[in-house]
């Protein structure tokens, strides 16, 4: 399903009453203003009542899928370097000037996109347009900055992967599931590549991918479209379009058998991470897979929670994820086991639930629950300026248009129980899956 940028929340989705009005939650009433500059920059503006603030997103269609061995992690490293100064603003000035106007900034890199955003008081719009356009036009890339950010990213890698069991498993899982496609390597990059990336490579990367024709800007909040568009034109029009973008080779062969790998590491308990080869966000089966995920794993009443965690006690937590991506993605399941847990039993229990979903009944009430949860989650993300901007931009990048946001909700409505079962039968099969088992070893293992 889509990635929700909602850092302040724990999961409390709400859904409109089925019979009640959809007042305020109906995406078809989002009056988005579209404009494309001559240099290819796509702009989407949405004036919204609520806080007197604006959220400003810039999505670059570049992520780890665009990399190659030797420079893996460069997109994410680059994301870090975007804050270190540009032609008219010295190092650290970006954040200083923004924070001085009561704004915040952040960014993230995924396998598909690099997204930058600011949340700020409406009065700071001109400043932000200035800051953002300057770094798109003329980012400073120097040795000092590369040296420092390299070390910061290596610390991030150590934190998220090398010293995190889940992160370690997930990295090996992607590398096992994808043998040829660029989803094989981690977004943060291999440690060896992080050490090897050169300044020249960063400059080349910037020129290739950080061009206006590779970007979508989404602004939501207390803004007026006409003056905002004029401001954007004024600041961005002189940035030249970049070269045509290299495509990503779709070389991943069909998988014809289960892959099972182990990590032996100090750990308190075993764990399993699985990935089934699935489809891309635009695929006709994507909506059904979102429902498979919800039926299996969202809420305490979900099947994996009820059966694996509570009834059979083969896992302490059981979560399923289907990440929307540009290229064919994976349907993942993550099982944490108790210290004395048996991975074979846990896997067997999972397989039994999958078979039940594939061939057994899916009661109307359960399907309705799943649709309500999905709808609630999707719509709840639209309750803030930031959430709206992110949802619009994400659909623009993954589906080609922000309008696809409405279609997402319609598609969920139309999915039948048969569709859900069919999707489970088609994709959740052992021949399409990779499994990583964490085998606890060493002194962390408690006496039994």
């Amino acid at each position, binding site marked *: 399903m889509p990635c929700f940028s909602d850092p302040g929340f724990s999961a409390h989705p709400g859904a409109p009453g089925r019979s009640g009005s959809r007042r305020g939650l109906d995406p078809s009433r989002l009056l988005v203003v579209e404009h494309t500059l001559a240099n290819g920059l796509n702009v989407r503006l949405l004036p919204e009542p609520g806080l007197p603030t604006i959220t400003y997103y810039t999505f670059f269609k570049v992520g780890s899928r665009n990399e190659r061995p030797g420079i893996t992690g460069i997109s994410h490293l680059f994301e870090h370097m975007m804050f270190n100064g540009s032609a008219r603003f010295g190092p650290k000035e970006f954040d200083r000037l923004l924070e001085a106007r009561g704004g*915040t900034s952040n960014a993230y890199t995924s396998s598909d996109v690099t997204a930058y955003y600011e949340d700020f008081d409406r009065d700071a719009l001109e400043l932000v347009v200035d800051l953002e356009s300057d770094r798109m036009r003329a980012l400073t890339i120097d040795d000092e900055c590369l040296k420092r950010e390299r070390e910061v990213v290596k*610390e991030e890698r150590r*934190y998220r992967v090398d010293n995190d069991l889940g992160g370690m498993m997930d990295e090996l899982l992607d590398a096992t599931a994808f043998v040829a496609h660029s989803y094989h390597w981690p977004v943060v990059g291999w440690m060896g590549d992080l050490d090897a990336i050169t300044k020249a490579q960063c400059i080349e990367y910037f020129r290739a991918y950080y061009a206006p024709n590779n970007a979508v800007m989404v602004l939501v909040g207390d803004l007026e479209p006409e003056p905002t568009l004029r401001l954007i034109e004024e600041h961005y029009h002189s940035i030249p379009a970049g070269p045509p973008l290299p495509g990503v080779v779709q070389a991943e062969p069909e998988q014809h058998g289960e892959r099972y790998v182990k990590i032996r590491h100090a750990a308190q308990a075993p764990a399993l991470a699985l990935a089934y080869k699935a489809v891309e966000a635009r695929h006709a089966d994507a909506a059904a897979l979102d429902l498979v995920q919800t039926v299996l794993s969202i809420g305490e009443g979900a099947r994996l929670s009820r059966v694996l965690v509570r009834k059979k006690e083969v896992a302490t937590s059981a979560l399923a994820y289907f990440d929307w991506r540009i290229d064919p993605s994976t349907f993942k399941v993550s099982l944490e086991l108790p210290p004395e847990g048996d991975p074979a039993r846990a896997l067997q229990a999972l397989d039994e639930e999958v078979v039940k979903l594939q061939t057994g009944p899916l009661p109307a009430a359960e399907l309705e629950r799943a649709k309500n949860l999905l709808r609630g989650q999707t719509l709840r993300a639209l309750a803030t300026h930031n959430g709206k901007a992110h949802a619009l931009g994400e659909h623009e990048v993954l589906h080609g248009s922000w309008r696809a946001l409405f279609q997402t909700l319609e598609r969920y409505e139309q999915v039948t129980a048969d569709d859900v079962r069919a999707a489970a039968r088609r994709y959740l099969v052992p021949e399409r899956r990779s499994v990583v088992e964490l085998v606890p070893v060493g002194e962390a293992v408690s006496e039994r």
Partner: protein
Amino acid sequence: MNTPEALPFHVAPMTLPPLTETALPNGLSVVTVERHDLPLVTVRLVIGTGSARDPLGKDGLAAFTADLLRRGTARRSADQIDDAIESVGGLLGVDAGLEATGLTATVPSDHAAGALEVIADLAQRASFPEPEVELARRRTLALLAQLLDEPSSVADRALVDIFYGKDHAYGHPGDGRASTVETFRREDAAAFRDATYRPAGALLLFAGDIRPEEAVQLARNAFGEWEGEPLASSSPAAAARPRGLDVLLVDKADATQAQVRLAVPGIARKDVRFYAAVLANAVVGGGFTSRLVDEVRVNRGLSYSVGTRLVALRELGAVTLATFTKSETAREILDVSLGVLDAFRAEGPTAQELDKARRYVIGLYPERVESNEQLAEALSSARFLGLPFDVVARYRDELARATLPEVVEMARLFPGSDGAKVVVVGRAGEIAAQLEGLGAVTVRKVDDFR
């Protein structure tokens, strides 16, 4: 306390939705914050009990009891409870803190009554079915074991231990310890609920698409028979600032990165100097242009994350620093951080730094209370910290009023090389030698925090 000066910039008034409060005869307070732009309602019940009331030898009981509320009541099975909320697309959340336990659900407006009934049922009639209690105990023990694999969680548990000490009401982790959770039985949870769940002092908040009259009526129907005398409120003691650095090194042999924590006593939330302290915190360790981020991350690339936090509780507080770095630079990150903190304590921020920090914190605030859930959380938090609800609306004005001398004074609140509790979680083989000369160092094992 001080006359409002002419502000160098305009602080737009924060418009919050209208708030109505009604007290029921049993002492339960019903608050409605009306907002009709979305057909959603957040219902949040907060009861004045938490891990501070864990009985002796029963660390973790408050959290354990809270998690069990939804696993069955006199009227509903766990499945029925889940279904009542989730079938309409809502999720029920339970949070158990030091002094307050919350139950929250966000549902479509037409389902507000149903959600409230479920929450009322959980609060008053939880039945703690034996099989559920047994399962919860086994699962909690497993989760406590898994926590030991997370260096950051171990650091936080060790810090609670070293900062408050075992005899303090706050001196144990909220989720408990293996040795205490092992003893939990049905009777423990039921007794804790009977002893500490009271309407007096509890707060029921509705935020969103509902009218106060309806909310109050629903509350009367659902909670009218809830009884109980108010609980005595505790006054946990505040510690003195340590003299010298008191260092706890927790050996995690497989770690390639060290988690680092510093802590000193701080101030309570109601302290008039709170807002000055918030600003001091923003200058030294909040936000991306703080002194610590500048020196530790931007200038030296020592960490991905470094920051200070003001923990301002009802009767006392703490000021903490958290960061991490590869094992080889554990001492360096401590030295650099303490250097920054010492300089800050000595002179406080410059006027320019204060101005920038003020704008930043004021600018950030509205987004922290943008949604119904956030608003409900902010208001209930205010109540349980002993503050009036209008602290939310007045937050930015108070920040605008704090003067430079007040913020300079609060700079001295922060940890420094003169005295602090220090925790480092990492490979002792590589780190112990580095820490020589830093202060009194004790080495323990990860397993000690099970």
